[in-house]
């Protein structure tokens, strides 16, 4: 059984990750997922590929911390988070967050909070390949 929270180079199976979360309880009635994918454009520039770097150890711990705080602060039953690093093509999957609860409102709130918190607190950086070269993206002020 794969870990619920992890960082990996290879692609993930959305269905497998959801199953991994769903098996936490038969009381789950709602599963909300956020999937981030590689867009072909950013701020008006054409993108031909992405590359993600992370701070090994710290990034994994920040993701685990997000899951633990989500379980504590929202009425959810389980949460899974997977983020890829390395080279990612346009259209490929980058990040998946799965939040499961008895009723839908809790899962929506926790999932939206978790992706916002991931972007704010997790040391992961994106480099975009454009026609004029590679650009590191700074999204958090």
């Amino acid at each position, binding site marked *: 059984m794969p870990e619920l929270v992890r960082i990996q180079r290879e692609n993930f199976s959305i269905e497998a990750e959801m199953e991994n979360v769903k098996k936490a309880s038969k009381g789950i009635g709602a599963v909300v997922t956020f999937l981030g994918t590689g867009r072909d454009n950013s701020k008006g520039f054409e993108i031909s590929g992405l590359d993600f770097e992370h701070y090994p150890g710290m990034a994994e711990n920040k993701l685990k911390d997000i899951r633990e705080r989500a379980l504590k602060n929202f009425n959810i039953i389980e949460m899974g988070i997977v983020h890829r690093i390395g080279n990612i093509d346009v259209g490929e999957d980058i990040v998946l967050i799965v939040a499961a609860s008895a009723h839908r409102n809790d899962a929506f709130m926790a999932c939206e909070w978790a992706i916002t918190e991931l972007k704010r607190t997790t040391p*992961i950086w994106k480099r975009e390949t454009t026609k004029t070269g590679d650009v590191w993206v700074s999204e958090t002020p």
Partner: protein
Amino acid sequence: MISVKFFAMLKNLTKAEAKQYNIEGTITLEELKGMLKKDFPALEGVFASRSVFISVNQEFADKNTVIKDGDEIGLLPPFSGG
């Protein structure tokens, strides 16, 4: 010895992955920044614009954080995961 790791665009700026320093006792974040700016003048603008987080032993540092021998410091530009 302490080790300072550079990530993402900061690696491009410093043209380094990491930098080691020998320190005696403890130093403050401001003292560390001074040492780094001397070795990597390109970091001056980064520190001035505050567009960098500093981690100590993989936790976010704050004003009161003190660095001691053996610590692992991270120089973290704004995140762009997700």
